[in-house]
């Protein structure tokens, strides 16, 4: 017994590089040997799905890309799933970017979903307006006059020449607003400067870390539903019935969480054993 306790105490001050190796393994292995755990949608993901489901063919949705490569694994799958749902419903999609890298992410998503999967027509079914710097000031500008901020789209075409831009002059002209956001500027700013002042229905997909900051907005009804991180994306993929990157990452995610919880519990056991000993001596 004494020896076992000794081991536990010593394991408590283990070189952290052993922990790194364990984490690398538990994340890597399920990617090679999937477990196919069933996914269960949470209430907030279901809300997003229901809201989009209510949109009708020809409705206009503004989707804003506010993430970059650093958070791509979390947000990109949900952006793709949402675009799939919107195109499935024949909703017109307008894409803006408040992060410079967002434009690249949007291009990738468009190539995959709009061009390859649904063969949508640029300028009639979707448009990529591109990135504008200025954070919340850009949103404020879009709310009052869309055409001041964007005179050309990302490819340099004039907005007046794009058929689907007809009748779009401010954010209030849209039926749905979605922010795929990884931080500032992002969801919070869209709520403050666009959704609250105009009353346009808004949904959001955020990194896991942001979920907590955004939850009060969701509870107060300022945002209708939220997709949280990669699990949120997996849930949405499940809802639209098209499994993607999010779903394939869930096994690794599950196993890693279990292992980390195990670490926490073991760390605490070792902590208690040590504390009891130091009391004795």
């Amino acid at each position: 017994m004494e020896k076992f306790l000794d081991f536990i105490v010593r394991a408590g001050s283990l070189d952290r590089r052993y922990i790194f190796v364990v984490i690398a393994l538990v994340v890597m292995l399920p990617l090679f040997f999937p477990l196919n755990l069933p996914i269960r949608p949470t209430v907030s993901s279901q809300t997003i799905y229901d809201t989009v489901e209510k949109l009708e063919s020809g409705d206009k949705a503004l989707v804003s890309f506010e993430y970059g490569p650093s958070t791509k694994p979390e947000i990109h799958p949900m952006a793709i799933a949402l675009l799939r749902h919107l195109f499935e419903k024949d909703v017109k999609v307008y894409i803006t970017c408040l992060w410079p890298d967002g434009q690249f992410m949007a291009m990738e998503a468009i190539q995959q979903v709009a061009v390859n999967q649904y063969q949508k027509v640029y300028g009639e079914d979707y448009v990529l307006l591109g990135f504008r710097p200025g954070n919340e000031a850009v949103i404020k500008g879009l709310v009052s006059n869309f055409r001041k901020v964007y005179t050309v789209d990302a490819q340099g075409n004039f907005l007046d020449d794009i058929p689907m831009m007809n009748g779009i002059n401010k954010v209030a002209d849209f039926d749905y607003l979605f922010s795929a956001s990884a931080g500032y500027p992002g969801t919070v700013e869209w709520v403050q400067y666009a959704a609250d002042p105009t009353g346009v229905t808004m949904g959001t997909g955020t990194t896991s870390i942001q979920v907590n900051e955004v939850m009060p907005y969701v509870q107060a009804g300022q945002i209708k539903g939220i997709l949280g991180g990669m699990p949120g994306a997996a849930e949405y993929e499940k809802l639209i019935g098209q499994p993607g990157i999010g779903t394939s990452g869930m096994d690794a995610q599950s196993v890693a969480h279990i292992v980390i919880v195990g670490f926490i519990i073991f760390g605490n056991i070792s902590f208690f054993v040590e504390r009891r000993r130091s009391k004795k001596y």
Partner: protein
Amino acid sequence: MKDKQFWSVAGIIFVLFMIYWVAGHPYFVSERSVMFWSILIVGGVLIYSTRMAKRGEKIFLRTIPGLKAVEEAVGRSTEMGKPVLYVPGIMDMDQVETVAGVVVLGHVAKMTARYETSLNVPVSRAIVMKAARESCRESYLLEGRPDLFHNDMVHYLTDDQFAYAAGVNGIMLREEPAACLYMGKFYAESLLLAETGNSIGAIQIAGTASPSQIPFFVTACDYTLIGEEFFAASAYLSQEPELIGGVKGQDTLKIMAVAVMLLATLFNFFHDLNMISWDVLGFLTVQ
């Protein structure tokens, strides 16, 4: 009516606005009048309490446990003959948290001067370095120990987030400070710092307002100044009437917020029961 000037200006603004309103309030977005009045009232409360503080009104601020702990931590470092490490966050002086961090640094520098303990302040922005140096120099002068102060106690590492974290971790492992204080704006590096500090067994005290970083500090540090506590601490330490008045003003506003919440719930309850027709939720919705 302690502050006649304030009340007369407020009265004049009110009367002028009323005249404008009665005259048909041209060019005014009437749907936002609730927000307009909120801004005037909230702004008024803040200005009023700042003015009162400047005029010398006694303002009580509760003790903040984390602050007492700072003194203990410096004391312990002195006993052990080890340095104190102070990290003022990774952002520039335009962030309120950085400003608060530098204010608290001044206070810590006073203690290290008094106890003759060595202080080490790595920073990640050039302007923060200037400000932090000034603040330390002043504290050492005030304590009558300018001889102990040297410029290198505040030194610049790098602007880059992770390189900075790696640098600070290096200092921790080499110098093994007995107390690590993290006060300022932190992002993902909070975890790296707090964990390394924990592993060398230092007393750790943190103060920050970023909600997503607080959990890491709360679990890994001995004391954490959470969000507004941190701002209040800097006001408390600086004893500047402007800052203290601000804290007092925000306190008043919090009580008002609680009152509004309770009243709104009550009115909403009666509205739901069809006992009154006034819709409080509609009233509070400003577009």
